[in-house]
């Protein structure tokens, strides 16, 4: 099972509503994934400021601790078990180093100029509330409700997975060759935080893009390499992309209006959106990459 939602806004005036719309869509997908939920929101960013989403406890003092140690101003937004740190681009390496040395208890789960990533175990409604998703603004976002099949029900095993700057991936399905793909990627220098099959898919896309592929090309390459069932939704700094396996094992439906593009594992998740009655509703074809980006 598992449920996926994605929302890409075409009009600026909807941006304050992004979290609210995405949250409603995500909650409808509870039946498909009641054990954990997560989402990535692409909000206002600054080209010269980097953001890290960290997960753990005792987060409130992070901003002060890092600022004092590195002598730079570090912003902090605290949301339940997660915090988003924001700091000038040039100190990114130092902040990461400080975190791994002084706060090895924390997990860095998202990194980039715009991405913020939150995930927890529990009913989607509770996860949405704990992080106050309805209060978040942004240009696009993806969300996932999980019914675990390949690895344990843990916060680390919840989606989305982010393995590259401003990239994230959510997955409905299961991969059968993730162990061998993981070994190949580890030889290429990638590291993985969990035993999860989806993290391998995210890592594969990141690796291909690192070697010069466009997002579309990286996803096309996954058709040849990844074996199993999947519908992927991939978030990037400027938009999102959708890919279904060649036999379209897992359901997917999309809606497009003048104001937004939306993805849902089931139409029910799209039915909550404004103007859905007049949207162009269609089912993405198997083995075909669909992408929307702000240029």
């Amino acid at each position, binding site marked *: 099972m598992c449920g996926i939602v994605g929302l890409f806004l075409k009009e600026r005036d909807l941006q304050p509503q992004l979290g609210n719309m995405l949250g409603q869509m995500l909650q409808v997908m509870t039946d498909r994934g009641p054990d954990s939920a997560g989402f990535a929101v692409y909000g206002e960013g600054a080209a010269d400021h980097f953001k890290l989403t960290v997960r753990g406890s005792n987060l409130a003092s992070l901003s002060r601790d890092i600022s004092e140690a590195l002598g730079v101003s570090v912003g902090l937004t605290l949301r339940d078990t997660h915090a988003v740190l924001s700091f000038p681009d040039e100190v990114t390496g130092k902040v990461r180093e400080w975190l791994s040395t002084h706060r090895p208890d924390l997990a860095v789960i998202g990194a980039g100029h715009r991405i913020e990533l939150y995930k927890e175990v529990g009913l989607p409604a509770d996860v949405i509330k704990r992080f106050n998703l309805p209060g978040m603004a942004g240009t696009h976002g993806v969300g996932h409700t999980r019914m675990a099949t390949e690895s344990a029900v843990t916060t680390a095993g919840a989606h989305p997975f982010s393995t590259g700057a401003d990239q994230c991936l959510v997955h409905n399905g299961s991969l059968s060759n993730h162990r061998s793909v993981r070994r190949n990627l580890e030889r290429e220098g990638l590291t993985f935080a969990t035993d999860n099959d989806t993290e391998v898919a995210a890592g594969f896309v990141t690796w291909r893009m690192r070697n010069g592929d466009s997002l579309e090309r990286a996803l096309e390459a996954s058709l040849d390499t990844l074996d199993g069932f999947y519908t992927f939704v991939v978030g990037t700094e400027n938009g999102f992309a959708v890919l279904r396996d060649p036999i*379209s094992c897992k359901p997917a439906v999309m809606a497009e209006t003048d104001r937004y593009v939306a993805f849902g594992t089931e139409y*029910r*998740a799209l*039915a909550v959106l404004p103007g859905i009655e007049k949207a162009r*509703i269609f*089912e993405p*074809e*198997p083995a075909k990459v669909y992408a929307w980006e702000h240029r």
Partner: protein
Amino acid sequence: MPVVDLAVSRVRELNKALHQLPRNTNETHWTVQNPAGQHSIAVGIDAPIEVMIEGHVGYYCAGMNKDAQITISGNAGVGLAENMMSGVVRLAGDASQAAGATGRGGLLIIEGNASARCGISMKGIDIVVKGSIGPMSAFMAQTGNLVVLGDAGEALGDSIYEARLFVRGEVKSLGADCEEKPLGSEERAILAGLLDRAGVDVPADSFRLFGSARRLYHFHVDNAY
């Protein structure tokens, strides 16, 4: 003329009310509003009634239908009219995967397109799709007729037993043991009847017929692993 608003009532309540109808009921015209993509709407009806569903439906809508005429004004999710026994189901929009799966009788009319595995394991149902159908359609089809005015995706009729597949447009590829067959007078009459019932005014001669090559009926050592 009962009207059921699914923004207020639950699908279970609707289906329970439909299941309790005696076959000679006077409540023969039902309207269902605000389906909002919910699953299993109007499944298991066993009465000659008419049901109008206004909007998009989720999975398994009109499944196991017997004798009812069900019309859906929007799109449908996976498994539309699956295992239908008799009656007519008409969809104004597009159908998702496995429309008409395992259907044993009746007529399913899809005004738009149907995606993958349309008519999978069909066992006597007649399906008319005015648009195109997706890959692996009529997989393991046993009996019945699938009529497609548009194109058919990859592997049409894979592992087909018996069923007639009429396609007017392009066929991307045929599945294992599916082959083109001559369109004889008997098949042309069956096709013309279905086109007439579906309200389609195109000549039967504009279709090609596909069916079973019957090479998988018996064990053949070359097919063994």
